[in-house]
């Protein structure tokens, strides 16, 4: 056998599994001394042992140097950050705390009561809008998926709707619908209440988003699934109904929930057309008392809704991912 042939290449002189001392990392981690100092000590020990040929103990010291260097990043940075935030809260005679977290508001039952009443309006708006969006977006998605040249005009109209409403800032739609429909005495919707206008405007905007989600969900079903169903003699409609849509629904749920979280947050803009929602009420309190604490309450209330929702969504996504990886 010929050991320096073309394929095996030149033999290199390397040491396998040698000792690592992590010296640079240890020095850098001195920026947070409580972890940096032990890191450096272990690192020095490691190189001394390595020089004496005590490989195994040297490796042990190297590992320790590495661990301490990591502590200096992880713990050090956090300590500095938290200290900075505490300082911020109490600097200027606590003015930050007073502006954002005024006790007299945070502990006032009246303020909470008022804010909760306002938030209940936001909740109603997004719950109703979500139901409307679910249906309306499906109609739009179906129209956009109609096949053939004959349906080009209607597909085009649906596409124009989706593209424009995805391009408009929601706040402008709220203004246009909330102020304009009443003024123009548009038939039927001309005598809606402000809350109804808010629901309508958000439904129009999010209907466009969600119809895209539906469409992507249906299109994400691999064509081979359709081929399999059609090859068994199922008609187009049967294939959609029994094979494509049941699979699409599962895939659609996470992006749908994502849009719904967006919708929930966007209810914060309906105050601009005079709905006495949680933001209007925060503004009212701000005007009466000159503190933003009510806005902090509003932010907290939104947090209480959107965080669990987001967690749930992430859980769904993770589960789906596991399934996909588990399956083929």
């Amino acid at each position, binding site marked *: 056998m010929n050991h320096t042939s073309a394929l095996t290449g030149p033999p290199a002189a390397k040491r396998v599994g040698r000792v690592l001392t992590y010296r640079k990392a240890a020095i850098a981690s001195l920026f947070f001394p409580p972890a940096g100092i032990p890191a450096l000590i272990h690192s020095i020990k490691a190189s001394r042992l390595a020089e004496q040929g005590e490989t195994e103990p040297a490796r042990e010291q190297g590992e320790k140097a590495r661990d301490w260097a990591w502590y200096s990043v992880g713990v050090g940075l956090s300590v500095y950050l938290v200290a900075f935030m505490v300082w911020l809260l109490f600097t200027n005679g606590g003015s930050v705390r007073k502006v954002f977290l005024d006790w007299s508001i945070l502990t006032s039952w009246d303020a909470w009561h008022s804010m909760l009443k306002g938030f209940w309006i936001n909740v109603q708006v997004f719950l109703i809008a979500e139901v409307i969006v679910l249906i309306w977006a499906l109609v739009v998605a179906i129209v956009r998926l109609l096949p053939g040249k004959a349906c080009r005009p209607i597909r085009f109209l649906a596409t124009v709707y989706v593209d424009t409403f995805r391009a408009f800032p929601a706040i402008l739609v709220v203004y246009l619908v909330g102020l304009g429909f009443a003024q123009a005495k548009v038939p039927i919707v001309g*005598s809606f209440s402000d809350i109804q206008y808010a629901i309508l405007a958000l439904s129009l905007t999010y209907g466009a988003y969600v119809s895209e989600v539906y469409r992507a969900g249906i299109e994400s079903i691999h064509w081979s699934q359709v081929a399999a169903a059609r090859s068994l003699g199922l008609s187009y409609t049967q294939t959609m109904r029994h094979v494509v849509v049941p699979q699409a629904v599962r895939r659609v749920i996470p992006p749908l929930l994502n849009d719904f979280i967006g919708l929930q947050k966007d209810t914060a803009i309906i105050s601009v057309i005079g709905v006495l929602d949680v933001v209007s009420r925060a503004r009212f309190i701000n*005007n009466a008392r000159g503190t933003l604490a009510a806005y902090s309450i509003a932010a907290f209330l939104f947090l209480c809704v959107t965080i669990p929702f987001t967690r749930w969504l992430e859980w769904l996504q993770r589960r789906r991912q596991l399934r996909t990886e588990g399956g083929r």
Partner: protein
Amino acid sequence: GSSKSTTSPGGTTAATSAGAVVDCKPVKAGTLSVVTSLPGPNFWGTTNAEVDPDKIKSGIEYDLANLIAAKCGLKMSFRNESFDALVAGQVAADSYDISLSQVTITTDRAKVVDFSQGYFKSDQGLLVKKGTTVKTWDDVKKLTVGVQASTTAEYYFTSGEKKGWKLDNTKVFPDLSSAYAALNAGQVDGIIIDTPINLGQASQSGGKLEVVGQFKTGEEYGAIYGKGNGKKAIFDPILQGFIDDGTMNKLIAKYLGGDPSTVPFIDVPTS
């Protein structure tokens, strides 16, 4: 509308007992439907008092609305609308009787809504930190001045619609408290808004702020009625009664705690 608050007619003036009950043909039986745009400190709710719009129990326009309701033998009920919708005629005319929302009467606005006669003079006052010397228009021009969005101050001092009134350094705030906060923070040197409102702020500041001058706009707040729906004919006489018998002045003094006539006028050169 979202919020409705019903109170029994209250008031401290003699006006309640003056004259017989008037038939006001309310849009909703038994109720005087009033529209306003919150927040409106000291007009609907009092600074440092109410934190819940549904529990407003005080304020110049709140009291006025109750007085009118009493005159008509109705309960007063108010709801919130956006200021924009009110002045642009974008609130359905058949959904309210009268709107009291510190709206200045302008000819443009009068094209889309009906106004009552003025019930509150709204010359524009300049509020500054005590110690700032402002005597002439040239002094004013050196300042960075804050105004509230959608007010006549914004209209006059930022757009140049009124000859010579345009200021170079203005900031527009969404609401008054942020404007006053900016003044306290030194982000602006002065706030221009209706003199009585600035007087109210000055009196609350414990002497830290003062109103150093005002600009004659000749403008007044008027109530708004739906365009051409006949409410004007019903409510104008009632309003006039409250102005004539001094009720209005008492309300202003009660809530704003200052006399606008003591503030010197600053002339704006028109050339």
